[in-house]
């Protein structure tokens, strides 16, 4: 791989790996997390999140045995928290893939310390998201196989490929599959590192199996780099396509407030926006607990905040565009839909969304917010809340008041809605905590690549 960094000075100043670490230091630092006993905060955290995960399973069981009526969905609001949560989770996942794949193709070196964790976050987010398309159906025991084009006794009974939900099935399953393959492929050299350092027999066996016999030879590295490139190339369009497909769930409907062509870019921007916010949330805590400040430096965090600022501004601009077009179109239903959002029964959700998504990220213009982990953690939480409300506003406010006023209604979540959602957060965090505990959270091999360049550059500067 040729050194194609465009501006070394810019990129490596301040250096991406700090504290004068050597290759050995990198391996030691990252591997030790998985080899030693986790800090006590980890135990407290996983105890809580495991309970939440159990709560999720309980709620889902209750849902499947009793019916969708345990949620707050009704007529006219057929989708409530279920699809809001689905879109929220899928959106979050996009950041990981962007960091892993797109930043890789753009040769952004700073991605290397966060890409592993971000991609793991994507997988777990997709897992949490995937619960909803299955369980939001009235008959999930049927949906689980009727939504896939499997051979059946009718021979010609296919799915309806005109339906955006069908496209979702393909998009999300492709996304999950490709992300998983990409993540795993990238993990192989690091798993080999763990295998080589393992003293425990079981550890040696497990990591030995997982690392697929990695020897680190030149030809293996060549294959690895090529596979990585291909998978990155496959994942890149997914960043744009998956959430565009998800946005089609709404854009192809006739409902005012849903039926708009701005949704694909708007959703994708929003997905990256919320995803990066989630990465920031997770990374600020992880680096603090595991003392990874030298690997996940302020510069990394600052870059992420800049992406958040950029995508947040796009999202804010999209809101304004929607409003303008609603007025410009002259369509009375469209105009009403937007006035209803801002001043109707869901205005509280709407203004929360505006505050959290438009106002809050603008604080990242100030370097204090971009460079202080504690502050960016708080802002990132607000942004995630705001993005949740964006999906909720789109779904609930458009559905509850559409064409015929006689059918207007209102949606209120039930405790099952809330506990299910909290449960998915619990499951996500449980999986992430397990990831931190057992797998290398930072891509050691890639960091070492950056370290090499950094050293070269510093050597060159001294000469």
């Amino acid at each position, binding site marked *: 791989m040729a050194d194609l960094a465009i501006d070394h000075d810019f990129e490596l100043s301040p250096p991406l790996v700090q504290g004068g670490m050597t290759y050995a230091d990198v391996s030691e630092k990252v591997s030790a997390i998985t080899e030693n006993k986790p800090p006590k905060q980890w135990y407290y955290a996983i105890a809580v999140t495991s309970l939440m995960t159990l709560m999720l399973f309980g709620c889902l069981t209750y849902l499947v045995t009793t*019916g969708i*009526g345990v949620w707050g969905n009704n*007529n006219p609001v057929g989708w409530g928290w279920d699809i809001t949560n689905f879109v929220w989770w899928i959106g979050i996942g996009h950041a990981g893939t962007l960091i892993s794949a797109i930043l890789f193709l753009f040769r952004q070196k700073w991605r290397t310390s966060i890409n592993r964790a971000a991609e793991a976050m994507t997988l777990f987010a997709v897992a949490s998201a995937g619960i909803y398309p299955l369980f939001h159906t*009235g*008959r999930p025991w049927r949906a689980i196989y009727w939504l896939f084009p499997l051979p059946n006794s009718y021979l010609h009974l296919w799915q*309806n490929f005109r339906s955006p939900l069908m496209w979702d099935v393909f998009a999300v399953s492709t996304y999950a599959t490709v992300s998983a393959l990409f993540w795993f492929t990238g993990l192989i050299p690091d798993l080999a590192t763990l295998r080589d350092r393992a003293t425990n027999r079981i550890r040696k066996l497990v990591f030995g199996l997982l690392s697929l016999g990695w020897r680190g030879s030149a030809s293996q590295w060549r294959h690895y780099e090529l596979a990585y490139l291909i998978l990155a190339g496959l994942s890149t369009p997914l960043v744009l396509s998956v959430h565009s497909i998800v946005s089609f769930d709404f854009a*192809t409907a*006739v409902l005012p407030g849903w039926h708009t062509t701005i949704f694909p870019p708007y959703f994708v921007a929003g997905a990256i926006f919320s995803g990066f916010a989630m990465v920031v949330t997770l990374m600020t805590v992880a680096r603090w607990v595991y003392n990874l400040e030298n690997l996940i430096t302020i510069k990394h965090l600052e870059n992420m905040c800049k992406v958040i600022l950029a995508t947040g501004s796009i999202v804010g601009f999209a809101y304004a565009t929607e409003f303008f077009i609603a007025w410009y179109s002259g369509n*009375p239903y469209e105009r009403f839909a937007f006035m209803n959002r801002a001043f109707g029964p869901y205005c509280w959700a709407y203004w929360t969304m505006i505050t959290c998504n438009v106002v809050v990220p603008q604080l990242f213009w100030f370097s204090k917010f971009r460079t202080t982990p504690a502050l960016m953690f708080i802002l990132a939480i607000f942004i995630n809340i705001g993005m949740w409300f964006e999906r909720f506003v789109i779904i609930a406010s458009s559905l509850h008041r559409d064409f015929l*006023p006689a059918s207007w209604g209102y949606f209120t979540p039930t405790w099952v809605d809330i506990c299910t959602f909290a449960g998915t957060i619990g499951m996500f965090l449980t999986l992430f905590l397990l990831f931190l505990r057992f797998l290398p959270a930072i891509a050691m091999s890639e960091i070492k690549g950056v370290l090499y360049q950094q050293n070269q550059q510093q050597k060159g500067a001294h000469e």
Partner: protein
Amino acid sequence: MKPLVEINPTRLTGKQYWRSLDQAAATPEFQEWVTSEFPEGYATVDGTNRRTLLKLMGASFGLAGLTACRRPVEKILPFSRASEGYIHGQPLHYASVATFNGTAAGVIVTTIEGRPIKIEGNPKHPYSLGATNAHLQASLLSLYDPDRAKEVQHKGARSSWDEFAAWAKAEFDVTKQGDGSGLRIVSERNASPTLASVRTDLSKRFPKALWVEYESVNLDAARAGAALATGQSVEPHFVFDKADVVFSLDCDFLGLDSASILPVKQFSKRRRVEQPGDKMNRLYVAEANYSLTGAMADHRLRVKVGDAGALALELAKELNVSGKELKVLGNAADKTGKFVTELAKDLAEHKGKSIVVAGPRQPAAVHALVFAINATLGNIGQTVAFTKPPSELTNSLEQVKQLVADLDAGKVKTLVLLGGNPVYTMPTDLNFGAAVKKAAASVALTEEENETWLASEWRLPMAHALECWGDARALDGTASIQQPMIEPLYGGRSVLEVAALVAGREPATGYGLVNAFWTAQWPAAEREKRWKASLFDGIVAEAKAAAVSVPVDAKKALAAAAGRIEPARAGLEAAFYPSHSAYDGRFANNAWMQEAPDPMTKVVWDNVALISKTTAGKLGLRDGDLVSLSKGQQKIDVPVMVQPGHADDSISLFLGYGRAACGRVGQGVGHRVEGLRTTDHFFLVSQVDLKKTGETYQIVTTQEHHRMEGRPIVREASSEEYQKEPAAIKEMAESPKGLTLFPFHDYSKGYQWGMSIDLSACIGCNACLVACQSENNIAVVGKDQVRRGREMHWIRLDRYYTGSDEEAQVVTQPMACQQCENAPCESVCPVAATSHSPEGLNDMAYNRCVGTRYCLNNCPYKVRRFNFLAWNKDVPEVRKLVFNPDVTVRMRGVMEKCTYCVQRIERGKIAANADGRRLLREGEVVSACQQVCPADAIVFGNINDPQSRVSKLKKQARDYELLGELNIRPRTTYLARLRNPNPALEPAAEKENP
């Protein structure tokens, strides 16, 4: 052998409805079989051998697990010789008659496998003409009510009909009763000639016995008024299809103030405009509460119930019927004055072609005055006709007062309560529940274990109208025979049979009595033929009661009336109205009725007190505030609700709720307003006291928003505007025929189903809503689920207010699946559970649906219904008998919606195919909603046939697609609502809040 556990074959609950045909027939062998602990087939152990005993013990131990294998002995009747005309799986239709508040309406009942599943109108019957109303539709469910009275009880213990018959023989004997001065009988209003003959027998046997007819919803005022006006006992008829101008004074003649749907049929005929040149009628209404009639009005005046008489006098004066000068309070005098002036002018211009009608809440004096007005207008004999009354009119309130006085004085030896629920409905000052107990012996025959049942000594289960023989006369005298469709499910008997027991008629069987009565009227040679013909047609062919030409002396009527008409005065009044759901309480345990939203307020599972916006503001009341209404000793608590267009200082109360002894559906639902009703204030309580309790009560409605928000949903025009510019209706919104993303279907061949709904005719009565529920096995979800927005009705009636909140106008729009050609729901279903049929229907495959609800979201009309929970999970077995076997009962998690009654279409096509592969004729397939509609507002048919009625209607200029601008091409289109306002009067409502 004395049984350890007695099993009463007549008391059957839960899964085992009836075990065998023997049981249904209640043969003596069966009785013996079921009461013996070990039915035949067990072996007695009589051997003394120890080995044998141990062998038997061991064997029985080993076989212990087989206890479930014991099968009752059943006698199977194979169809080696089938019943005539019975094909298993094919429905049979029988004609019968339903009596409602003393009026008969012919019905045709669809039965399948020996049980009725649908009630339709009898096209041959003059008071049905093929249509029914919501209550008749729902009465089918009452047949299968699991909370029906199931056994005879005496002093709280189980008894039997035989024991009662034995007691009755002794009790209703001349030796015991003497001249019958201690015998009192209370029944509902009845129009049965056979029962009348039994009554005659009874009065011959016990000359001093008194038979009181009492109805909570008392519709006698018109007859009483006619008696005052003419001096004779006559039945007045209003022929609405002959009238060009109609003025209704507090009369919801399109709704519950008529006992039949005939006025709707007649009125809607003149309301519909098929050619731009057709002449529409004009309706003026003066009323307090917003009724269905008021919703159809071209001009509506808000008048307190108590002030209506004064308004009538004003009108009489204006028409020069020599009226007295009286002040009319209430609305701005100039508004009222202008209304009366123009109304009088309009009426006068249509002499002989107008109708003035007053409602049952008005005293007889007002009715007499109204007849005088009609006489002055030359309407008598034209649009207002008199006939011989089908039954004798009595002053039920006077009789009831006397009855209770006798009871309290201890004069009553035996009290027989035949049907109804008098303990619940009687005026509260009579304290009838306690009075019943003062009779030496009491007998109550009721359908359910209601308040009357509990108060009585002898408790007899009543047979439902579909289970017993009887007959009834319609208001014009047409007689029909009522035949049963099913054996009484719980061994109940009819009013006729019990009355016969009391009268000592033998044999006291319904069939015997009815058959004997009618065949006695006919010559012997024709008896069999005429009996069969009467049963088949649903009407007894006989000379109709001729119109009685009775002159109305206007001056005399006026004199009789004027002194008794109250002047208009200030103060809060409360008027009693029958509920569109519970009626007078008889449907309180009927889940279809409880869930059917009130046509005007859209309230479900409740009754509310309606007040005007101004009054609410004055008293500081908001929707849901619980208030205490009291007058003298009487007090009730009831939640209020603001009703746009309601008269000021008037409260509308609805009967039939707050039942204390009701089944699982109606127990404690709503608020009992009968507690405020006394014999002096039976229709109206004037000067009522209102106190806020400070509590609030949650009212649940199916519709939360009541304005069209400027959208062209219900398109309206005056008939004048329409005649000038017919194209204006279609131009109210664009309806482009754009391209479609996916290849379009070819609709040029075969049947293409479509529907046209005439908004000028629809009165919003709920008949279609309940008929659809009955036909399509639609589930009831209960009050809490309706509160969450999950009601399951496939057709709903959207009611919008236009104009101001004080002077609102109402438009109603039936809304069911529009079967769009370019359906937005079809493309979004991931599993293709909803797809388009070649005949233009949007098909719903329940077994394919996984329940993603995307179709519900994408439907712009929001007519799809989702089974959020398992609505049919705990349905009692007997309740399942009402299901239509042609329609799947949906499980939880699947979507459903109107199918244009595809099961009827398919049955029709099969029948046409079997009948020589011919095409379906016009009118051969009718949807349930079309068939039941009394206003003929819904028309369904083949739009590929240019001669079909639906095709012709769709060609009208006022036909429009709702939400046509979305390019979804609905097959159901609407005919715009036309009004016919009087140009001299101001536009009926300021169109400020569309």
